[in-house]
Each structure stands twice: as C-alpha cells, then as structure tokens.
C-alpha cells in the first residue's frame, strides 16, 4: 500500500527526516511514536504535501504512484487522508457544504457520480449516527468555534466519509478527554479494512489502548530507530525513550 524509501526532507536548510524507510501493507495499522522534535509531524506533512518542506531525497509510493510528484489535492483524491493535529477553522463555510464538496471531488476522481444534497445528507447522517456524533455539526461552520475535542471528532467524520486508502493521524489524541478519545479510536477501528491502511502518529501510548497497532515504530532524530509489535508500545510506556536513544547513538 505505502512504501517509503530513504525519505529525506527538511525546512529550508535544516534536515529533519534523515532517511525513513517504512512499508505499510493493506489492512495494517502502524503506530509511529517518538519524543518531541523527532520528526513525526514532519513525516505526516510531507506525506500530505504541505508547503514549506523540501524533500531532498527518497521516494514515497502509494500503490504505484509516487506521491511526491502530486499536488496535495491530487494526493487526497488518490486516497491520502491526513487527520490534522490542529484542524483549521474556516469561518462562514458550512461544514456540510465543505464535506460534500470534498466527497464529490474524490468521487469525481474515482469516476463515480457526484452525490446530490439529499443523498449526501442521508449518507452523512448515517455515518454520524454510527460514530455517535450530533447532527448540529453539519450546520456549523467548519471547525469555527469548535472545542478541541469537537475538531478532532470532525476529522474522524471527514475521514469516515472520504474513505481513504491511507489515513495518517497526526497526534489526533492530543488534548482529548477519555470520551473523545474513544470516539476517535472507534472511528479509526471502523475504517480498518483489507483495502486500506492507517498510520497513527502519537506521543503517548494511551491511544494505543484503543487502537491496537500491528506495528510500532520509534522515530528519533529523523530516523526509525526501532520497530516492533504492540508490545514495544508498552515497553516504551514503562521505560521511556532514553534506553533506545542510547542504543541508537
């Protein structure tokens, strides 16, 4: 599904990612953990194509496409979804309208018929019920005036509606209370299927009590210094990162 080969990237002249290799198969959930400043969010940004990062080497293949050749909206249409650490507010733009535009851009790209307002509403309301979200979300402007938890839940709703091949969750758990965390985790678990994959970036092991990863990777100083299964997360919880960093040095 996703093949990252020796990816190097930075901001201006400062290298941040110093050669990342990662292979994610369909049906898998990978967790990427690591201390602050290790390059976790940079990795998410580079995968989605955010401006301001210079890719200096390596490849990122989603199925057969090299993502790095595509504009951010093209990556989105190919099935890359980034759940933002800080979802952006767009005042005055109705959430339902925004989401329908996004859904239809992606449907158009896939050669599917666009959803009219009625069918979209039906679909989104069903999804909201599944996720336990309140319908007044749809009437409000995109993320404007939302609490931190509401913003994250809105990300999960968008993810559920866009049905991505590759979902990258960038510290989606930060600042969430336990109820919100459950909703977010539940959304991710519902999405999980044999034809998609998820990369969950998190600072804490807490989220991994709810989303059980197939693989856990530790990112430090722009490199993956350790990979393992879910037990690695528990080990990190107990021992912290220092022992790994010492080993890596």
């Amino acid at each position: 599904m996703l093949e990252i080969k020796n990816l190097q990237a930075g901001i201006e002249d400062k290298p941040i990612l110093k050669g990342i290799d990662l292979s994610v198969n369909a049906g898998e959930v990978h967790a990427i953990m690591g201390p602050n400043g290790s390059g976790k969010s940079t990795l998410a940004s580079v995968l989605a194509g955010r401006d301001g990062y210079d890719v200096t080497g390596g490849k990122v293949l989603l199925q057969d496409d090299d993502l790095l050749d595509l504009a951010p909206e093209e990556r989105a249409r190919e099935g890359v979804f980034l759940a933002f650490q800080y979802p952006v507010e767009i005042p005055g733009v109705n959430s339902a309208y925004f989401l329908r535009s996004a859904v239809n851009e992606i449907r158009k790209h896939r050669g599917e018929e666009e959803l009219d307002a009625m069918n979209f509403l039906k679909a989104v309301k069903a999804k909201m019920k599944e996720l336990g979200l309140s319908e007044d979300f749809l009437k409000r402007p995109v993320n404007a005036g939302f609490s931190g938890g509401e913003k994250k839940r809105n990300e999960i709703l968008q993810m559920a509606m866009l049905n991505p091949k590759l979902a990258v969750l960038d510290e989606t758990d930060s600042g969430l209370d336990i109820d919100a965390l459950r909703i977010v985790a539940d959304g991710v678990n519902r999405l999980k299927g044999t034809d998609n994959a998820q990369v969950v970036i998190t600072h804490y092991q807490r989220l991994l009590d709810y989303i059980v990863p197939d693989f856990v990777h530790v990112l430090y100083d722009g490199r993956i210094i350790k990979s393992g299964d879910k037990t690695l997360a528990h080990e990190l919880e107990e021992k912290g990162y220092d022992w790994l960093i010492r080993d890596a040095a």
Partner: protein
Amino acid sequence: MSAHTDTIDEFVASDYKYGFVTDIESESLEPGLNEDVVRFISAKKNEPEWLLEWRLKALRHFEKMESPTWPHVKYPPVDFQDISYYSAPKKKGDGPKSLDEVDPKLLETYEKLGVPLHERARLAGVAVDAVFDSESIGTTFKEDLARAGVIFCSISEAVQEHPELVKKYLGTVVPYTDNFYATLNSAVFSDGSFVYIPKGTRCPMELSTYFRINAANTGQFERTLIVAEESSHVSYLEGCTAPMRDENQLHAAVVELVALDNAEIKYSTVQNWYPGDEEGRGGIYNFVTKRGICKTNAKISWTQVETGSAITWKYPSVILQGDNSIGEFYSVALTNKAQQADTGTKMVHIGKNTRSTIVSKGISAGRGQNSYRGLVQVGKKATNARNFSQCDSLLIGDKCGAHTFPYIEAKNPSASIEHEATTSKIGEDQIFYCNQRGLEPQDAVNMIVNGFCKEVFRELPMEFAVEAQKLLDVSLEGSVG
C-alpha cells in the same frame, strides 16, 4: 517540491468577461465641459426651464470646487475638459417606441451580458431598465407595473411624463452643492432610472437597472431617484459593466432614495465595472454619491457587492430623520490587481429610537488597496439611537492592504454605538486543509472568501446572491498560482 509553492503569492490575470465593445453608431459630444454642453444635454432631452436652471447652477458651483483629496486612493488628476459628457446610440427616426424597435445590436449586447430584455426577461420576473452610455434604451414590464401604480422608467422620461414628481424630489437628498462629483453629476447627468411607488403599495416585482458604458472617452453620469410613498415597499437592484479599455473612464452617479413614513426601500448593487489590468492601466473611476432619507418608521437598506472599477469611492448613506427609522448597510468590496476602494457608509441619526447596522467585508488580493470609511453620527435629539458596526478585512497574499477609518460623533448621551473590526489573512494552512480534502487551491480560496462574505450575501435577493457569488469567484480567478 509541489506545484503549489507560494500558493497565494502568484497573481495572474483573470478574464473580465464583459470587456467587449458593441460596434454601434453613436452620437457623442466633443470632449469638454462648459455651459453649452449643459444646454445641449438639457435641450436634447427637451427639459423644462427649471431643470436647465438647476443644471446651470450646479455647473457654476462646480467651477468653484476642487476635487477631494481625503480618500485613501491614488490616481492622476482627472482632466474634466477631456471627457465627453454625452454619448448615445444613434436613433433611427424618432427613436424606438417599444423594445421591439430597439436596435437588435443593443438587445444582443444585453443578452451577452446576461440581461435579456426580451421574452426571457418575462420568465425572470424582474423588471429591467437598461442604460447604455448616456441613454436609457428601454424598460421592461412597464405595463404590468403601471397596473400596480408603480412608475418605473428612465429619468429623462420621468421629466417629461411626471415633471411634478421629479421637481418635488430631485436634489432633496443630494443637493447640487453636495460634493464635487455630485455637483458635476447635477450639471451633466444624462439618464438613469426613476421609480415611484404609490402609498400602501408593495412593488409586485424586483426592479433593476443595468448600466453599461460602451463608448470610449465618455463619462457616465446617471441619476437615479426612487420615491417610496407612505407604507410602500420596493426592492431595487443595479448592475454595471464596461468594456476593457486602456484609458480610465469616469462614472460619477448620484442615487437619491426617499422613504416616506413606514416605507421600505431595499437597494442592492452588484458593481462589476472593468477594473483595469494588473499594472493599473484602464478601468473605471467609480465616484458615486448614494444617499437615502428615512421618515418616521421607514427603513432603507443598502447592500453592495463591489468587485469592479479601478477606483471605487462611494458611501451609500442613510439620513434617519424620522423617529424609529432604520438604516442598514451591507457591503462586500473586493480589490484585486491594482484596484483601490475607499468605501463605507454614513448613518446620520436625527430622530428618536433610530437604529443602524453596518456590516462591511473588505477583501484585498493582488496589489489591491481596500479602505472602509464610515461615519456614525448621533444628533442631539436622537434619544436612544443605536448603531452596530462590524468591519472585517480579509487579505489574500502580502502585497495588498486593508484600512479602516471609522468616525463616530455622538451628541446624545443615550446613544449606543458598537464597533467591531477584524483583519484576517487567508492562511496557507486554510488552503492546505481544503487541498488535503481534495479541493483545488482556487476552489479553496473561493470557498473561504464566500464564507467570509456570507452575512452580506444573505441580504441580497435570492437570484442575485448566486450571481454575486459567481462574480466574486470570477474576480478572484488567478488569485492563486
């Protein structure tokens, strides 16, 4: 790395769809401004003596005035002797008696502008007065309106058919001495629309005037007068376009609204004069005076969407003379390329319990400069006057500017005046967020801008709200690289 480096930094030309020229023989005056020109225009229109006198008084007054320098706009001085003050499509014989006799080229022009004056207009349910350069070329739905007692015609026609009404109200809201451009207009105004709604009548349809400047080196000086008798109601819309030319053209209009007791006038403008190119060459100088007066319990509401013109200089105002009267101003002003706008409103509270609301949304892109200038004035006797003002500015890119000049004068201690202002920038992160959901950068900008303008758009009549949104999209075309 991606094709979208500096997403909101690059600005390329967007196409102005209405920039074509209609090839039609017209009758134009030689450039120049003097008494003969004023007499010519007045004679051409077969005007009564009092109106000619009024024009001449304005001309004499104008000759003593100097053009204002306080607006926050820059342009070379206008040579008023270099402008032709009258141009009209040449008439065959006595001129058209009905729309069926109007030159097909003119009808085609309006068709191309999306303002059909023929059969299809009937479906639209909107009565249109079409003004081409200095002349009104026709008004639709006249008979239907006449049955309701509504008069809707060109002001030249009103001078002939209803001189008593014109004489009673012309210049009562904007006197000929009012300001530089209004005085010029009073001397040389050529045509415009006239609306009269009788007592207790709700105008059965939307009224609309479509202004088109076609001829080169011509100024357009239209004068619009709307009188709403007691307890009447009217909604009026004006639209404007002009061909693309390298020279600047002057448009100095005057609009007067009179809302008598319990009457309501809703006046909407979608202004899309040619804005000039990226370098600031060409485009319309839109120097306009618009003002309304409200008697007891009356209401006047101005809604404007301004996307065109090289320079916009206008302050649709309301004089709240009657007790309990209401004034509203909703505005979206967009400046892209090298456009400049200095626009806002004046709310003059004279009566008791008068209320006013101002919502201004300024959008600056390219090298556009956008200023809000507003005055809220509360007189000594205006007990319990209330005003709420909200001025928001949105910046796209880093070469444009937004400025706010709010003036508040309160002479009555019971007045309540609130002013809120915000300036925000369309962030790369907002655009990226939309991109990440599959939306094109341009669609993202359009969506963000439309969201920003929502409070104003919802004040527009339904069919025009859609138009306005499209217009904004077109005006922002190329605003992201």
